[in-house]
């Protein structure tokens, strides 16, 4: 069987930082598997600024931040990048099966770094009652539709949850001519960064309802309105009042979950609540030589931290392979 020193699954910010760091720490045989046709992962759709201040001491957009790493990784001949490569199976012996257009391949990794990122929580995970018409999107999907595909998901938007992607999408929708009718947040305060509250919500006078939840989605074919309920004291509180807001789109921004189904398949133990690997050390898992970095390990607020921790994962992989620290 084809064997490689290090295989990295995921070519987003975490995977790229880990690959470069692994090379810099002495690993010379590295394979990066990325399912998309581009490197960069989710950063490609994050066209807003706010990245890189910590890592590069510069304010960058997502694509610019990704490009810094891509330029570097493309210049290293010891790193092989395979795009449109979709991993479908992983065993505890770190044997990886992946599909590509026209191919199915199997590779055994002496060390493996999983940089698979995270996914968004859905409407179903927070149990919103009502109908299931067109017009319900995760904030990230809406971001991809607008920024990558050039499609406008809707014209009158209600955003559920005040996570950063939701706040950023509020501004994005407004800039593209849509109306953001409300942001509904069950907690007492925003879950997103303060600066996003200012530049995405306050700047555009978007109504934000704290201690409220969407109690029902209404509409037969397309979303027509949402019913919101004010909760006494916030989450879990008694319903004090209800109100209906007309809209054609509901955007879900209620949190992210590490995407760890592959390592779970391999037998790595995951925390039931967070979907993170159970581990007492960042990036490590219950399987020796199998590391997880970036948002797959835990959901980080900013990408700079993802890069930093992923650099660490590259170093750990080198250590696992018995490569002496060159520094």
């Amino acid at each position: 069987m084809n064997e490689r020193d290090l295989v990295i699954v995921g070519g987003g910010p975490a995977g790229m930082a880990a690959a470069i760091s692994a090379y810099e720490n002495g690993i010379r045989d590295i394979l990066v598997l990325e399912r998309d046709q581009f490197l960069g992962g989710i950063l490609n759709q994050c066209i807003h600024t706010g990245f890189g201040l910590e890592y590069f001491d510069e304010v960058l957009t997502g694509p610019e931040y990704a490009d810094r790493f891509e330029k570097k990784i493309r210049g290293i001949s010891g790193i092989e990048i395979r795009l449109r490569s979709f991993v479908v199976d992983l065993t505890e012996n770190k044997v990886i099966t992946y599909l590509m257009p026209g191919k199915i391949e199997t590779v055994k990794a002496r060390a493996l770094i999983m940089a698979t990122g995270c996914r968004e929580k859905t409407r179903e995970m927070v149990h919103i009652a009502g109908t299931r018409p067109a017009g319900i999107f995760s904030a990230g999907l809406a971001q991809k539709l607008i920024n990558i595909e050039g499609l406008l998901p809707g014209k009158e938007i209600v955003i559920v949850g005040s996570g950063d992607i939701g706040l950023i999408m509020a501004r994005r929708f407004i800039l593209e001519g849509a109306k953001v009718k409300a942001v509904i947040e069950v907690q007492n305060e925003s879950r997103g960064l303060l600066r996003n509250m200012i530049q995405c919500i306050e700047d555009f006078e978007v109504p934000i309802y704290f201690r409220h939840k969407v109690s029902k989605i209404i509409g037969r074919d397309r979303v027509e309105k949402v019913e919101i309920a004010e909760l006494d004291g916030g989450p879990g509180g008694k319903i004090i009042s209800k109100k209906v807001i007309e809209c054609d789109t509901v955007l879900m921004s209620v949190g992210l979950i590490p995407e760890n189904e592959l390592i779970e398949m391999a037998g790595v133990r995951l925390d039931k609540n967070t979907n993170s690997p159970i581990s007492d050390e960042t990036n490590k898992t219950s399987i020796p030589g199998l590391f997880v970095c970036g948002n797959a390990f835990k959901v980080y607020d900013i990408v700079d931290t993802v890069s930093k921790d992923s650099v660490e994962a590259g170093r750990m992989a080198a250590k696992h392979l018995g490569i002496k620290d060159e520094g």
Partner: protein
Amino acid sequence: MKIHDVVIIGGGIIGTSIAREMSRYRIKIALMEKEEELAFGVSKSNSGIIHPGTQNDPSSLKGKLCVRGNAMVREISKELGIDLKEVGELIIAFSEEEKTRLLALKKDADILGVPGTSIVDNVWLKKNEPNLNEAAVAALYAPTAGIISPYRYVYDLAENAACNGVEINVDTEVLDIVRNSKKRDKYRFEIVTSKGTFRANYIINAAGLFADEIASMVGIEDIKISPRKGEEFILDKKKEHLTEHLLFPLPSKKSKGILVTRTSDGNPMIGPTAVDIDDKYDISTSDEGFEEVIRSAQRLMPSINEGDIISYFAGLRPACGDDFIIRYEDDLPGFINVAGIQSPGLTAAPAVAEMVLNILKTKGFRPMRKLFFHKHRKRTIHLFDVTFKETKRLIEKDSEYGDIVCRCEMVSAKEIRDAIKRGASTMDGIKFRTRAQAGRCHGSFCTCRLLEILKEETKKSATDITKRGPGSEIVKGVKGE
């Protein structure tokens, strides 16, 4: 204008079963479905259970046709190349009193001729259904219960019927039916639809929730469909082995209760509720339904966690009295009503089709059998149910099998294109056929790719692509237009 021998109204499990059964004969058949695609009515929210016949009055049509249908579907699923998983069911008793009721159920099942039923004790249950509530004292075991994908069953029946000459019309709503009184014309009915007028000698009303409205068009007023809502909750596939069998509590008069089952694709499913409502379009779920289902399911299986729920939906049963109505209208020769087909309608469907044909034969309908009936249909390929060895062979044959579109359910671009070629024209149609968007991320990842492929294959613009027909467009605008 073409005259059809038979027009079937309704493209759900009943309409398509009848269509396929009749396509064995040398007759012209047209099927009309008012929704954008087949199975978009009652059938789409069916739980997919092939019932053994254990919970029906032995004298009822429901009971007889269920047992007969259960036997017939085995052959049909082989012919159509569709998975029927024979998992068996357990009706659970939690007390000695309930155990007595199990014995009564078994007696009814024996009268109906349900094969292989037995009463099993708690020792058997502990061994064979380890996650079951330990308080269970006994169960009625029926090995002939199974699961099937209800919509794929409908699509495969329709595809096979079409291959045998049935004309399938979707997005075709019947607006009126006129009796033709002119004797010299060779047809009895004119069917006015949103896509023009059809002429036919026989009409089979299999319109599900709307069977009463169709009947009313020809003056039949004694059929009244009362929608009975059922909310179902789907658990993550990770919990596939939560149950080995389909688990039922003891049935009430109104329903079979809240079950713990699983879909043919391996997701555990809990539900359904049973609430009578007025609105035939109300398929909303409720907080109350959620509470009821979770509470009742946990009674059967205490380890069920609400955090495992990845999806939910509601469907409407087309209830009409206690039993199925399958009736030739002697006052209106050529018209047959097939109404009130709720549970166990999916199981009974082939037997219902057989019965309809037999009734027509007693009423002077004498079709000739075709010399050659294409009874087999080539099995649809799904990467998620083949081995990697087979995947390799497929990819070598067509590289697009290696191009994964839906990450949660492992669906390739090739499968999506095939589904569209076989008739999917909407996002839901693709979901029902291929499972793309049916996983835990709910299409967050694959929606863009699906829109792209639908655009290419159907030559529609992005703003015309819908979730399930006009009015349910996915996006509202294109940048720069």
